[in-house]
């Protein structure tokens, strides 16, 4: 199933890019180039063949692990992906964890305070957070922490003046595992704003669902039994209700997480963060066909992996599914 979707995405993007007007060669030649030069360049990138033949060549190379060469950056697409994808993965992963922590804690507080005046306030604020998308959050954060309280770096992934000898492209993980504290804190500082911009809308969605399923769980018999045993309300929520309420919330978060990955495109752009989203915008503006194709496949694969991961998480969180 996943393979079919990925193939569909690949074919669709290939056809779309070739039937529409717009010549990638026209964007890279110098004004004085002769028609022979243009033809040679076209042949070099395989753009002189028919669309069917181009597709066969592309698919054959792809299966061999050859994603082609970027037209605008003159580098192997696979190499570029290997360099940029980890940055996006770290950003999306961090945003997911932050959203999960925020969503769960706000929901727990909302359920604990469901009789007080705080509950409607949480609902209203959450409604507001649901309506504001990552693009606006990112810019609000830029305005707040870039201008009014300039404490966070506005762009990039790491301070260029720092000594950066990384053996893997996973800077955040590597600096953490190798205990390079200064580097790690610098990377974190760079990631705070883009991470929050992506995490806040997701946290709001998670809160809406989790709050409801927690409220439902709180009136179940097993919670009543636990209450009769004398457990505190906080323990009831955390130990009894949450365990059962988290599964539907997680399933929904999976769908939302794919939106989050889509959101990395514009958020990376705003913060000049060197991930695949930022690269994708440049690739599109430059009509860099091989790069666009490689990036689209990477995004498609990411979506599918996230969906599989969420399915596994849901099974892990629900004992009934685990044993059946």
């Amino acid at each position, binding site marked *: 199933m996943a393979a079919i979707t990925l193939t569909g*995405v690949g074919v669709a993007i290939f056809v779309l890019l070739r039937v529409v007007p717009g010549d990638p060669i026209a964007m890279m030649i110098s004004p004085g180039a002769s028609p022979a030069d243009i033809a040679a360049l076209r042949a070099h990138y395989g753009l002189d063949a028919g669309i069917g033949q181009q597709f066969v060549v592309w698919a054959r190379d792809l299966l061999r692990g050859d994603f082609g060469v970027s037209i605008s950056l003159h580098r192997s697409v696979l190499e570029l992906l290997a360099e940029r994808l980890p940055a996006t993965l770290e950003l999306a992963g961090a945003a997911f964890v932050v959203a999960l922590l925020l969503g769960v804690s706000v929901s727990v507080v909302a359920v604990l305070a469901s009789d007080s005046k705080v509950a409607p306030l949480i609902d209203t604020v959450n409604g507001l957070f649901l309506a504001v998308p990552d693009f*606006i959050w990112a810019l609000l954060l*830029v305005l707040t922490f*870039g201008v009014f309280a300039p404490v966070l770096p506005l762009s990039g992934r790491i301070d260029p003046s720092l000594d950066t000898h990384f053996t893997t492209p996973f800077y955040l993980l590597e600096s953490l595992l190798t205990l390079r504290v200064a580097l790690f804190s610098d990377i974190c500082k760079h990631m705070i704003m883009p991470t929050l911009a992506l995490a806040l809308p997701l946290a709001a969605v998670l809160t809406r669902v989790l709050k409801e399923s927690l409220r439902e769980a709180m009136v179940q018999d097993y919670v009543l039994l636990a209450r009769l045993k004398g457990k505190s309300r906080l323990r009831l929520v955390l130990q009894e209700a949450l365990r059962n309420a988290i599964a539907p919330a997680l399933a929904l978060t999976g769908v939302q997480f794919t939106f989050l990955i889509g*959101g990395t495109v514009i958020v990376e752009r705003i913060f000049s963060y060197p991930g695949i989203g930022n690269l994708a915008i440049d690739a*599109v*503006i430059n009509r860099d066909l091989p790069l666009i194709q490689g990036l689209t496949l990477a995004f*498609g694969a990411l*979506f599918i992996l996230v969906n599989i991961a969420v399915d596994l998480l849901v099974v892990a969180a629900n004992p009934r599914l685990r044993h059946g």
Partner: protein
Amino acid sequence: MVEGALTQRTDVSATRRRWDWIGVCVADPKVAVGGGFILCLCLVALAAPLIAPHDPLEQDIMLGLTPPPGFAGAEPGHWLGTDDLGRDVLSRVLYGSRVALTVAFAASALAAVIGSTLGLAAGWRRGWVDAAISRLVEIWMAFPPVLLSILLVAVVGPGVGSVIAAIAIIDWTRFCRVVRAETMNQASADYVTAARAVGFAPGRILMREIFPNVAPVLIALISLEMGIAVIVEAILSFVGLSVSSDTPTWGGMIAEGRQALHEGWWILAAPLTLLLLTVLAFNLLGEGLRRALDPVMRR
């Protein structure tokens, strides 16, 4: 005589019921606040040439980067300051609402037409039609929307028309899914069975019986979609793919403001505030409409 009076009477109450929903909607505070804001914005957009204090394109390098009144170095007459080329930020923001609203209305209308036509077809005909349309929706939704819209506009070429088309081409799936589910839901209702039994043609049942019952959901969805369209337009002009740079847009101003952040924060703050308020208003309106038009939720 008696018979005639009776039919007339039912007609009157039917008309009253048909227009009742407008009253119900306006009475909803969310609809009133959200709709009120959007209405004001529409008036501002229409009257932009009359109320804007300056020509939005008029440059005055001598007055570049002057802050809004109340800050050191402010110039009278520039209520929200000027940008790096000395253009009046307030006038540009007012003119920017024109592109934003044009895209919001046109794109959501187009997306609604495409999506609900396919959704009605899938939900009514079922079978292979439904299977084909549903698969299409699934494949469509596997693309990251922002990337897809940038891609579409980049290949078709920038401009308001391309932006509208791109949003409609991406977001019809939202309408399709909801309208399909709602149509299926309505098609199994007793009143449809009754209409069939009476011998109404399928087309008539679909348009006269089912569609009016799907319409409330559709209206709420269109309002939410307008909020999305405003954001997507801002994103596309932020990237530089919307209208040409001599037409002021909120997204374009946001991009300029992001560049000149440390010299003039107001260039970013002004369009961002308006964008935020517009998105919130469309959401409020959509939420309110959904609640007001849904008979179950109303009770």
